[in-house]
Structure formats: structure tokens, C-alpha cells
């Protein structure tokens, strides 16, 4: 038997599924605990117990988490970050954090250090690196007590030497600081790459704590199978990698839900509404995959150049606060404290879940606690919830025609009838665990990003070589060779190298080849 555990840690709930091939063997939803570990342990232990599965039969554990996305959106748990940019005298017109929301800047601080350095397009230096200047910046950063540093340099994807050297100097001056080099995160486009590096930097401390907690939870359960985290393109990354690059998990939650929704419903083209505890994500499935945003994607108001799912998020979830005076819903939420603070669970906060229980569309907690609510008010609030979802669906639609809407996620109990604009509404079996299913079925990728000199080979030859190698890497990372396909090809010629050189990026993905660990 080769089994996969898929876990999705959301802001409100932790979902887990145990899957055997395409079959959901067991599932559980449990509140996300403040320490994260508790929820994961409870969820995995429960799905193992439900199915009487031995830990040794588990081939892999995949965890998807919206933790890092939420941290940025809520401006919480973010580490103050300094940015060292190498490019003087260029780039001063648009300093780091230039287009960032003010509240996010207030959270991580505006600690910009523009230094000399950076490269011209042809590999010349814009100005020589001034290590004294860098040391002085590093000491100033240290004096401020800042422990997270992002380093960006003009044309660093083409030549990483200056970023590398500066990283070494900063590491000497600030032992223990986390350092993110922009060349490791992003592609050409200084502002967007730098933005991604800064976001990664301010998440690093949180990532250490979070991934440690994940690993502890799994090993405490006696599971020895490898741990993967899902990244924003729907593929997997190993735990050690995730500690250093948490920003790559951003938007993996919506991706997992949408992939899970497609898998569970069998629908390939539809709009997916994933209703969680605090927010709902609305995305579009095209041929079974999330529609990708074709332009720069904003994360918490910050422009990045990742390739990400095109998702519209709204502040509606099962824990959203309801105000009877204004008859408004959300965006504030009790979040993971739903089972303590909602009326039906003995709390004193009126939430959307209380409204759903009062109306009789769902049973949970103690219905007598909401018996005092006015029937007409409850009915109007349910209508309001339908309207909020319909507006979001409408926003993602591109024609006036009705489209199938798949509703998934724990909060989808709030939606009891088709929303306006839907041709049909599908709530697939295991809807509440679509995100965990999406994590469990996530594929593994192999990527090649290399400069080819085309003096001695044709472009097609170079491309074939890159594709072969990407497929080989996917296989080495654990993909089943017969399932590997090339999903992304990009080549960018370089003017700065002698001869006709081109940079080729190729990405291959395949299903994880599952072999049970011995035992």
C-alpha cells in the first residue's frame, strides 16, 4: 500500500486527507491551533486512526499552508526587514518599497540602503562595489536590531557575484541574520524581484518556526516519510527548501483548493469559490488548472513577478463577524477561535456560522443558543452572504453567460442555493477537504534555468537539451517518468555574452512516484 497524507493548514481550520490513488480514504477538519502543531497532529492521527493505517505505510506527507500569505495580508508575524540595493548612482528615482501599501511599510519599517554596485546589461559594473559602504550599512542595520536582510542588485539574475559577496559581508557583520538574495527568488525586473526578496525576508523567521513545527508534528506521530510543502504553482518543495523560501508558498492555498475542486468534481472549466473561516478565494479553472494571472500579481498590495493563480479574495468566511445593527457581514472574523467564540459553540460573538445554524441550513453546535435571533433578520443576512459571493463570482467572470460554480471549503455551508450568475452549482463529495486533496495530489517539478551558447548548437538543440534535463530532474525529485510533461518554456537572449547566447528556463512536472517506505 502506498498512501499519501495531504494537509492544508488554513487560518481557521486544518484539513487532512488520506488518499490511496484517487480515493479519499479518510478525512478530518480540525481547528487550526495557535501553535499550528496541535492541529496537524490531531488531523493526521485522526485520518490514520479512521483507516487503521500504520505510519510505515505512508509514502509522503504534503502540507499546504496559507500561513505565509495570511501573515502578509494581515501584516502579522512579519520581521522588520532592511533592504540593501546595489545600483548607485542609478535607481534612486524608485527606491525599495516604492509602490508598497503604507501599513505594510509601517510593519516592516523603511530601512533602505542604496549602495554602489550592480551591473550594466553587458556585464560591466555600474560602479564598483564599496565594501566599506556595505559594512557600514550592515552595522547600521545591526544597531537598529534588525535581523532580516534582503539584498538586491541591478542585473543580479545575470551575474550573482555582487549579491553573493554582499551576502557574505552581511553574514560576517550580522551573524544570525537571515539573508535573502533577490537573484535566488525572482527574475528580471528589479522592483518586482526585490519586492519578492523583501517579502521572503520578512517571512523567514516565521518560516523557521512553522516548518520546524510541521516536522515535529510528523515525527512525533512516528512518520518517517518525506515532508513536502506545496508552492504557488501547485507543485511540491522539500521542507528544507521551504524554510529558506517561504515566499514561494504564497497563493499555494488557493491553488490547492482549485486543483482539489477540479479533481473532486470532475469539472475542468468552472469558477471555484473556496470559503474558509476568514476569507473566500474565487478563482477560475481552465482545463483543470487555475487560470494564471497574466500580468504582475499583487501580494498584500505588493507587486511581484511570480506566475500565480488569478484569485480574487473577499472577507467572507464561516467565522466572519455579523453586525445586526448595520446588517453587515465581515470582513473581521473570529478566525480559528470560531469553536470558542461563536454563539452556537457557547461564545458571545455572532458569526456567519451562527446565522447558517439559525436558518437551519446546517447543524452544528447548540442551536438553542441562536434561537433568539429574528427570523427575518437571519433570512436577510443569508441573502447578503449569497450576494457577496455572487458579486465575487461576477467579478471573475468574463462573459454574462452562466458558468458552473464549484463551492468548496469548510465555510461553504454558508451557501445553500445557487448564487446568481451560476449555470449550475456543484458541491462535490469531500468539498470541505478540497484543499487537502489538492495538496495530496500535487505534482513534483524539475526546473532548468541555464545560459546556452548557441555557437556550437541550434536553438532547438539547446531547447531539447533543457527539456530533457528538466524532465530528468523531475524524475530524480520523485516524478513518475510516464507522467512527466513540459509545462513551461521560456528563452531570453543575452546581449552581454560573446556570441549568440540565450537563457533558457524549462519546467517539467509529473505525478509523485509513490513507493511506500520500508516497514
Amino acid at each position, binding site marked *: 500500500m502506498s498512501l499519501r497524507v495531504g494537509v492544508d493548514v488554513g487560518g481557521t481550520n486544518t484539513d487532512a486527507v488520506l488518499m490511496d490513488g484517487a480515493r479519499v480514504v479518510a478525512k478530518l477538519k480540525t481547528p487550526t491551533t495557535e501553535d499550528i502543531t496541535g492541529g496537524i497532529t490531531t488531523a493526521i492521527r485522526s485520518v490514520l486512526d479512521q483507516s487503521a493505517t500504520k505510519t510505515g505505510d505512508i509514502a509522503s506527507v504534503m502540507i499546504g499552508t496559507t500561513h505565509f500569505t495570511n501573515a502578509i495580508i494581515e501584516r502579522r508575524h512579519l520581521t522588520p526587514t532592511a533592504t540593501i540595493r546595489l545600483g548607485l*548612482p542609478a535607481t*534612486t*528615482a524608485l527606491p525599495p518599497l516604492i509602490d508598497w501599501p503604507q501599513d505594510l511599510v509601517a510593519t516592516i519599517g523603511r530601512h533602505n540602503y542604496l549602495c554602489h554596485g550592480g551591473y550594466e546589461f553587458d556585464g560591466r559594473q555600474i560602479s564598483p562595489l564599496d565594501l566599506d559602504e556595505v559594512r557600514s550599512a550592515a552595522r547600521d542595520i545591526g544597531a537598529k536590531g534588525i535581523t532580516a536582510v534582503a539584498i538586491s542588485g*541591478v542585473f543580479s539574475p545575470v551575474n550573482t557575484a555582487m549579491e553573493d559577496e554582499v551576502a557574505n559581508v552581511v553574514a560576517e557583520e550580522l551573524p544570525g541574520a537571515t539573508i535573502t538574495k533577490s537573484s535566488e527568488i525572482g527574475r528580471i525586473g528589479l522592483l518586482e524581484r526585490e519586492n519578492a526578496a523583501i517579502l521572503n525576508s520578512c517571512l523567514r523567521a516565521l518560516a523557521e518556526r512553522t516548518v520546524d513545527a510541521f516536522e515535529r508534528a510528523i515525527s512525533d506521530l512516528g512518520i518517517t516519510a518525506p515532508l513536502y510543502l506545496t508552492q504557488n504553482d501547485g507543485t511540491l518543495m522539500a521542507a528544507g527548501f521551504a524554510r529558506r523560501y517561504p515566499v514561494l508558498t504564497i497563493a499555494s492555498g488557493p491553488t490547492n483548493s482549485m486543483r482539489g475542486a477540479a479533481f473532486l468534481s470532475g469539472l475542468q472549466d468552472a469558477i471555484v469559490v473556496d470559503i474558509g473561516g476568514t476569507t473566500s478565494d474565487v478563482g477560475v479553472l481552465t482545463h483543470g488548472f487555475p487560470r494564471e494571472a497574466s500580468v504582475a500579481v499583487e501580494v498584500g498590495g505588493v*507587486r511581484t513577478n511570480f506566475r500565480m493563480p488569478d484569485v480574487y479574495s473577499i472577507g467572507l468566511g464561516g467565522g466572519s463577524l455579523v453586525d445586526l445593527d448595520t446588517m453587515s457581514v465581515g470582513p473581521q472574523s473570529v478566525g480559528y477561535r470560531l469553536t470558542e467564540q461563536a454563539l452556537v459553540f457557547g461564545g458571545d460573538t455572532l458569526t456567519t456560522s451562527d446565522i447558517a445554524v439559525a436558518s437551519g441550513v446546517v447543524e452544528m453546535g447548540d442551536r438553542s443558543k441562536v434561537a433568539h435571533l429574528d427570523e427575518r433578520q437571519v433570512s436577510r443576512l443569508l441573502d447578503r452572504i449569497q450576494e457577496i459571493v455572487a458579486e465575487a463570482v461576477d467579478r471573475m467572470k468574463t462573459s454574462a453567460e452562466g458558468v458552473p460554480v464549484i463551492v468548496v471549503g469548510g465555510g461553504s455551508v454558508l451557501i445553500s442555493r445557487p448564487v446568481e450568475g451560476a449555470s449550475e452549482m456543484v458541491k462535490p463529495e469531500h468539498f470541505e477537504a478540497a484543499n487537502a486533496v489538492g495538496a495530496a495530489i500535487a505534482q513534483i517539478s524539475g526546473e532548468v534555468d541555464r545560459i546556452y551558447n548557441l555557437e556550437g548548437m541550434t536553438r532547438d538543440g539547446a531547447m531539447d537539451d533543457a527539456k530533457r534535463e528538466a524532465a530528468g530532474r523531475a524524475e530524480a525529485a520523485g516524478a513518475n517518468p510516464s507522467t512527466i510533461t513540459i509545462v513551461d518554456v521560456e528563452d*531570453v*537572449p543575452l546581449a552581454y555574452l560573446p556570441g549568440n547566447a540565450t537563457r533558457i528556463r524549462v519546467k517539467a512536472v509529473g505525478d509523485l512516484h509513490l513507493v511506500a517506505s520500508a516497514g
Partner: protein
Amino acid sequence: MGREPTRGPRMYDVTIDDLDDLATGAAVLGTGGGGDPYIGKLMARNAMTGRAAVRVYEFEDIPDDWLVVPSAMIGAPTVMLEKLPSGTEAVAAFRALESYLGRKIDATMPIEIGGMNSTMPFTVAAELGLPMVDGDGMGRAFPELQMVTQTLAGLSGSPMGLSDEKGNSLILNTISNQWAETFARTATVQMGAAALMAIFPMTGAELKRACIPGTLSLIGRIGRAIREAHAAHGSPIDAVCAVTGGQPIWTGKVGDIERRTVGGFTRGTARVEGSGPNTGKTLEVDFQNEFLVARTGDDVLVTTPDLITMLDAETGQPITTEQLRYGFRVVVLGIPCHPLWRTDMGLLLVGPAYFGYDLPYIPLPR
């Protein structure tokens, strides 16, 4: 400054809130090139913050004796996404030219209305308190600086100021606009492939005779049409066609993209696998920074100087050649160029033959 301009009926003020629409419209007329207008927009926003709105006049409002000098970036668009400007370059180029000419510049304008150069002049306009003129010299984006209607009118790009972020400023005096391109491009490569120009100094009278009027307003209308159509779930594609007189020529998915750098320009071909009415066929779109020729098999659908532009099939957002990636669903539009480009001289300057194509120019119906 000479006498005041006329306050005509189409005079208006551009504020920071207008820059988004202008940048979107500029990307549509950028025909895949001209650089990402985002950087131009950010620079304009930065320069306009805390300063007065920029006043825009139509050609007729400009006194004939005014000195109008377009402001533009020159270089490789990809470079400009990396080596961001210092912000001092445009003003330095204007100061250098004013010092050489011995008089103040009265107004500025875009030299090209596609891509980042459309919004770039707002930076210098805001910083120096200059008004802008509603028009440009291309009606679109083109890769070389002699490719302007000023050249057709016999105007010289010289003397021109060229400044980099390091503090270097050059004044070029050349015998033709082709030479201006050659020297400016060569100097720009040494400056790191991105520099700012103060070029084509003109009197108000020369402006009226040589340039294309109303194009700054046009990009504002295109941007607004896309935004409003998207918000109302209408078709942004139809909206763009209605505003520009363009038409969809292809619908499909981007397949292979080939790029190579030749003589400082990115040249290449994007293949768009047809869908809907175009199923089973492939459109090949060649580009040199901008899209030049669109053909399927032996059928040539559109060539330069008519505009070829790619829009995201769903959002209507324009896609530049740098952003083009495998898998994008696009609608390719053909938009008729300004009639000046359809003359013999116009075609000599920017027709298919100039770019090395042995193809006849078949004008898109206007």
C-alpha cells in the same frame, strides 16, 4: 517663457489619478514594445506627488513661437526594468539643451505614444513646471528615433541632449535623423543601454505642421475603455476596437517564442496557436521590440506601419513582447496607422522593407 497659450476647449489637467489609464492605453499603442509603462507611470507619479497637476494643451493652443521639446528614454526596454533611472537624467538633458540653445523650453510632449515613453514626459513636466502638448510623433511605438513624423516634415532631431544617471550629458548635432539615431544609440550603449533625451526641439508652428495631434488624449480613452468594459463585464477587446478603429485578426494561445538580440534590439517570433475560428492554424508574429509582421502560412495579415497589438483574451490587458509567455490566451488586433505613414516617404521610413521584409504593405481598412 513667451506669451501664454490659448485656453482652448480641450485643455485639461492630468493628475496622478489619470496615470493608470494613460499607462494601459500606452501599452496598447506600444504594439508589444516601447517598454513596460509601469516604470514610466511610477516615475511620473513620483515626480507629480506634491506638485501641481500637469496642464495639457492641444496643438492649436500653443503659440507659434514657443519652444517645444519632447522628452524620451532611449535604450533597451528590458534594461530599463532593471537599471532604474536616478531621476536626474531628464532634467539634465533639458538643462543641457537649454544651455546650448540659450533659451528656455516652453513645453514638452511624448515623442512616441506607445509604452513607457508616453508617460515619461510627465516627469520633466512636473519637475520643471512645463505644460504638455496633446500629441506625439509616431501615433504608436517604433524602435528608432528617426521614425517620427517630424522626419517626414523635414525637421531635425538635433540639437539633442542625452543624459545618463552617472551625470554625463552630451549634445549631438547631426546631419540627419538617421545619424542622430546612430550616434545616440551608440552613446546609449556606452551609458548602459538606458538614457534620457531632450530631442526634436520645435517651434509651436513646426509642431502643428509635423506631429500627430490628440494621441495623449487617445491613450487615456483606450485605458478608460478597457477599465470600464472589464468592470461592466463587457468586451474590453470590442471597446479597444471601438476607440482605435482596430479589428481582431487572430484568437489563440501563445506557443513557442523565439528571441535573439541583433544590433542592440530584441528580435524574435511569437507563434500563436489558433482557437475558435482560427483552430488548426498558427499565426507567426515577428517583432523587433515592437510587433512588425503577422502572418499565417503564406497569408500576410498585418505589417508595419499598421499596429499589431496583443491583448489578454479575458482581461483585455495589453501584453508586451517581454511579458509574452507560453500558454497566454490572446486576441491579436490590427489597428490602422496614421495616414502620414502610408505615404511613400512614410513607408520608406517604417514600412516592411526597412525592417528587412520583402513584403508589400497592404493597408488595413481605416
